[in-house]
Each structure stands twice: as C-alpha cells, then as structure tokens.
C-alpha cells in the first residue's frame, strides 16, 4: 500500500475517532433543584424536584414511589425560596448534629446546589428562614400524599 493511501486511512480513522470522542460522556449538570428527605416521621421519604417542575416522591415507609408536576405557582415559590441570598441564610441555620434528622420529627434534610444538611424548622429565629423551612416541609407533606 502506498504511503499516500496509508496517510488517507490514518486521517479517516482519526476523523471517525474524533467525531466519536466529541460525542462521548457529556455528563450534564443535574436538573434537580432540591430534594427534601424526612427520616423520623411517617411517611418517611424523599421528595425530589427538577427544574421543569416534575417531582418524584419515594416513600421509605411504604416502599413505593409516585411522581407528578408542581403547579406553576408552587414552582415559582420554590424558586423564590431557593434563590440567593435567601437559601444561603437557610443553610446558615443547619443543625450541627448530622444525625438529628433521624430523631427529630421536625427535621428535614435539604439537598441543593449548596449541599446537604439537616434542618429543624423550630430552630431558626429569622422569620424568613423559618418561612422557607416551613415551605419545604409543607411541600414535602403535600407531595407525599398527592398523586397525579
């Protein structure tokens, strides 16, 4: 085989590899806005909400799951509570005991872009923070029982 043919074959192989390579493993950012986990009270479970308003509730007590979609007003409120600096203020009130949410009925573990932490709604004195934690607790309670 002539060297020009070899070169052409090599370039063709490289072009194919490059196209394949560029398509490989683009791992998108998570579309999860927030997850709320409750461990110490029935129903225990985890509510996960994505940026398109879809949610899934995994019930740890009954070992079932269901999904649905937040109303536009619910999603709007959720985004308001997750916006900075409000959510930053919420995270500043996280409980120093990471196991407290396993014992405390009012405890919720929040998972967001700021990380995961245990919160007890009765702890904060800041009314805005308390309002946010109550919103997350109410959303959890509503979606725990609501079915699409």
């Amino acid at each position: 085989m002539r060297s020009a043919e070899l070169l052409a074959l090599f370039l063709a192989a490289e072009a194919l590899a490059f196209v394949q390579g560029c398509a490989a493993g683009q791992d998108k950012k998570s579309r999860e806005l927030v997850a709320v986990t409750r461990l110490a009270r029935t129903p225990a479970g985890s509510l996960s909400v994505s940026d398109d308003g879809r949610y899934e509730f995994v019930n740890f007590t009954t070992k079932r799951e269901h999904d649905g979609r937040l109303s536009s007003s619910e999603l709007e409120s959720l985004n308001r509570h997750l916006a900075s600096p409000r959510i930053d203020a919420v995270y500043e009130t996280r409980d120093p005991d990471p196991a407290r949410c396993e014992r405390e009925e009012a405890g919720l573990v929040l998972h967001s872009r700021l990380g995961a932490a245990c919160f007890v709604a009765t702890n904060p004195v800041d009314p805005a923070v308390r309002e946010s934690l109550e919103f997350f607790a109410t959303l959890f309670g509503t979606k725990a029982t609501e079915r699409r």
Partner: protein
Amino acid sequence: MKQSTRHVIAGGFFALSLAAALTPASDARAQACGRTASSSQFDSFYAPLWSCQQARVDDMWSRFDFDEEDWDGAMGFDDPCNDARPLKRTFNALQVLAYGVTTSPTCSTSNANVGHWAYCFSGNAIDELDGSCATDARATTVTAAVLDNYTELKTPFFYDETVVQRAGTIFHEARHAHGWCRHTDGCLDGSGSCDPNWNSGCVGVGSGSGPGANAYSVRFMSWFATTARAGWINATIRANAVAEGNHFLSRRFETDPCFRLDSNGFSFKTC
C-alpha cells in the same frame, strides 16, 4: 513571606511542604471559577479523614495522570490542601471513592460491591483527569482511538456537588471512558444524559455492553450508603447518597429500572 508549598520530586509529582499540610488555609473560602465553596458539601468532614497525606496525593496524581498545567492558578496546584480549591475538592472525592467503603481498595472487579474497586477501576479507565471552569456540564469524558483521551471536571462538579456526589461522578465518567460507553437523549433529563435501560446502558459505534454510566452512579451511591466505613458516613451524608441515587433512577433511564433506594440505600421494587 509565604514560602512555596511544593517542590518537584522524581517522576514530576509535587510534594507538599509540612507547612502546607499543617497550616490552616488562610484563604479557605477563596474563590475559583468565580464561586465560593459551600460549607455543606462535606469537604470539612472528609478532609481530616485523610489529612492530605503526601502518599495519597502522589497515588492520585499518578493514577489519574493529573498535569500541573490543567490545575494551576486558582485550580489549586499551589494550594493543594485547601478545601476551597477545585484540586482539593477532587482529591476529597477520590479519597471517598478509594476508602469510603474499604481500607484496602482493590483492582479486582469481582466483588459486587463497587466501593471496593471503584477507585482503581476509575484510575485505569480515565486517561487523564483535568479541571476547568466551564459550566456546561459536571464533567466531560472524551475518548478517541489515537487522539488525546481525557476527562474534564467542571465548575458544577467542584461547587454544586457534595463530596459523595463528586465521587459518584468520577466513577460515572470512568464508565464512559471504559469501553466508549455513551448516553442517549430519551429520558427526562434528556440532552445526552440517558442510559437506555439498567442492564444495557451504552450506545454508539464501538461502545461496550452492560450497565452504563448512570447505572454506575446508582451502584456507587447504593453500596456507599449501605456499606460505608464507620466514620466515613453520617445520617445526612447517607440521605444525600440515597437522594442522588434515586434522582438518577427516576430521570436518567429511558426505561424505568423499576426500583428505588430506601433510606438505608437498599433497593426495593417499584414496578
């Protein structure tokens, strides 16, 4: 005057000075990629568990083929024990991948518990681990036959994920690198984020067979939640691993795998 915190040793790896290892970082909340590190992502929990040991750093540096030019400046090459820097946040994740479940990680993949071999598997599969301030994805793995292969970790990986999520992301990227295993578009998260189903998750010319990258993420979260070493997990971290696993299960498969994780990380059937 601040002394240099590194010097070159045989093989080209850097060594940490005693001062770097023992002095609390004065700029612990220093910014990189325009972001400030959150204190709720468990870096301060895991950092003392391995104390930025030189031997561990050397092992990670060589196993994942880190390069200075990919991690210099604010990425942290000159500040490798600062939990606010992308490099240290990557190191913390790799330590969870290696030692979160076992004191003696292995390269044998015969154990069903991926926590025993995820670190070695990832090091073997990933050609080189780079960092960047791009924001378009958590990470990207490029595989090509003769061209440069690499995995690039990006801003959302460094600053929007907990240490455990980051460990899962590295294992996920390793699956991409191992066998050119690529995603599809047909799940709720879409846009090249999906596995067709649990048992057959790879697509593309030349791709491997078997569970795909999203399944690897779930497997790591489940095994970590159920079998993590004492001292390497707490109730909040376990809840975070379970939530991450369930998010992948609910949104990143074209066909629902029909199971979810319970509060301990064990699977239960849902359909």
